[in-house]
């Protein structure tokens, strides 16, 4: 399940933030992907809209890597099937 959440998150990063696909990996930090705090605000909103789960501000701040984000979303019951 979390692998499809991973795909959805990757898609958000590529389509909304112009992240190059080959830079995306579970270990990549948001800093590696050149996402700053404003981008993280937008990423949280986009993930909320596309995956139907809410990321609280405190949780967004604590995210180290993309893998952490995928795990958080999956743990919160992100639905990768819709959309």
């Amino acid at each position, binding site marked *: 399940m979390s692998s499809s959440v991973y795909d959805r998150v990757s898609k958000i990063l590529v389509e909304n933030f112009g992240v190059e696909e080959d830079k995306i990996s579970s270990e990549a930090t948001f800093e590696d992907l050149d996402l700053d*705090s*404003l*981008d993280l*605000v*937008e990423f*949280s*909103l986009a993930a909320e*809209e596309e995956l139907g789960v809410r990321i609280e*501000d405190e949780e967004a*701040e604590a995210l180290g890597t993309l893998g952490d984000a995928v795990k958080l979303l999956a743990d919160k019951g992100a639905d990768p099937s819709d959309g």
Partner: protein
Amino acid sequence: MLLEGKRLVVTGVLNEQSIAFSVARLAQEAGAELVLTGFGRGLRITERIAKRLPEPPPVLELDVTVAEHHQRLAADLGERWGAVDGLVHAVAFAPEAALGGSFLDTAWEDAATALHVSTYSFASLSASLAPLLRAAGGGAVVGLDFDGTRAWPAYDWMGVAKAGLEATSRYVARDLGPQGTRVNLVAAGPLRTVAAKGIDGFEDIERSWGAQAPLGWDVTDAEPVARTVCALLSDWLPATTGMVVHADGGAHAIGAPPPPASS
């Protein structure tokens, strides 16, 4: 309703923690019609977040440092409404180098950016919308402040910008008073907004606030500040202008926090 039929321009809505988001939500619930503005990359975010308001309002582009944006905003609002009853100025920015404890090492360029975006824009935006406010019978301008009469940890050049904002609002009140426009600021207690979290060391201010404020203070709840803004936008403070209204739990009035209660 408090703001029935008021046509309001609200800047500074970035996410649901934004003070301006709470203002927008409460204003709509109180019967106001809104236009939001967004800036640069933030514009996309504002467009997303606008959909979470009870009635998703239009979002117009406004970089307060760009003169053409002011003209375009005024033209759009003129066509849309012909008059504006209220403007909420919730715009501030300082480069990292102007915040967080390197006050004496900050270069002029960085301080200047903070003053341009956070202080001067209050006057320039008020001036740009002045004819539309006049057309509404005067209207109200409300800006967001953080007590600029004292020096704070970490706040640095943003503190100077806010002190300047307080002075600026008095001059705008002086110059727009004759056309009936009321101009006031709301000095908020510390809130965990995107803006505040960008300041390293701002949590030092947060920590003591709740103890010092006679009414207490919740750093996660922007609604008390937003209600105060809505009150100033309403017709119920008709003789109030050039004021800094504190919505801070009362912390500004107290010299030191009370001693811990003995049990």
